[in-house]
């Protein structure tokens, strides 16, 4: 189980290749990418050093307790990101596909609303803090 919070870019493909080679049976990944919709020129992600690692670590422990995972990884960037760059990635590995899928969705739902990151979108007319969505808060209720 691994939690990585970093400013540097990372390669989602390289991470999946490593997990697939470990031979767990089922590997699920989620990758979030900066979209270039509208005229967005990029994104700035603020985070709470220390609490971020703590909060995500607790989520990964929760997921490991609820599902039979052979491995899991969460990597999340902060700082300036360009359009098309990967923001974050969740990987779950299990002998069974249902466990891998559910654990990945659980981690995503918690990362959205409970990991101390704040996204600011950078556009031609200035920058805007991304508002949280009611549906993201609602998504937590299913777990």
């Amino acid at each position, binding site marked *: 189980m691994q939690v990585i919070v970093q400013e540097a870019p990372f390669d989602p493909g390289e991470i999946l290749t490593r997990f697939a080679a470990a031979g767990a049976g089922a590997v699920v990944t989620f990758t979030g990418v900066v979209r270039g919709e509208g005229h967005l020129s990029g994104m700035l992600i603020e985070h*709470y050093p220390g609490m971020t690692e*703590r*909060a995500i670590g607790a989520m990964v422990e929760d997921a490991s307790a609820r599902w039979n995972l052979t491995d899991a990884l969460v990597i999340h960037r902060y700082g300036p990101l360009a359009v098309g760059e990967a923001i*974050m990635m969740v990987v779950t590995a299990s002998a069974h596909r249902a466990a891998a899928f559910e654990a990945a969705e659980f981690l995503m739902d918690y990362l959205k609303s*409970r*990991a*101390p*990151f*704040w*996204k600011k979108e950078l556009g031609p007319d200035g920058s805007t803090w991304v508002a949280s969505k009611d549906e993201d808060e609602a998504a937590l209720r299913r777990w």
Partner: protein
Amino acid sequence: MYFAWVRERIGVPREEVETGAATVADLVVELSAREKRYALAFSDLAALRVAVDQTLTTFDAPLAGAREVAFFPPMTGG
């Protein structure tokens, strides 16, 4: 500590505060009375979240023994 637009409104990312406030809510009242930028940042507590010593909590949480209090908007990770 302040993050995102709370940090921008208050103007500093972190500061040392000596307080006798019993709860987070008391601390908010104390800071809001101090200067307008605090009152502005704390005007709608429903739009804010708070962590005490890096653990998410509520505004009625006690501050006894707390070393670090952070105010921020709802998180937008993932």
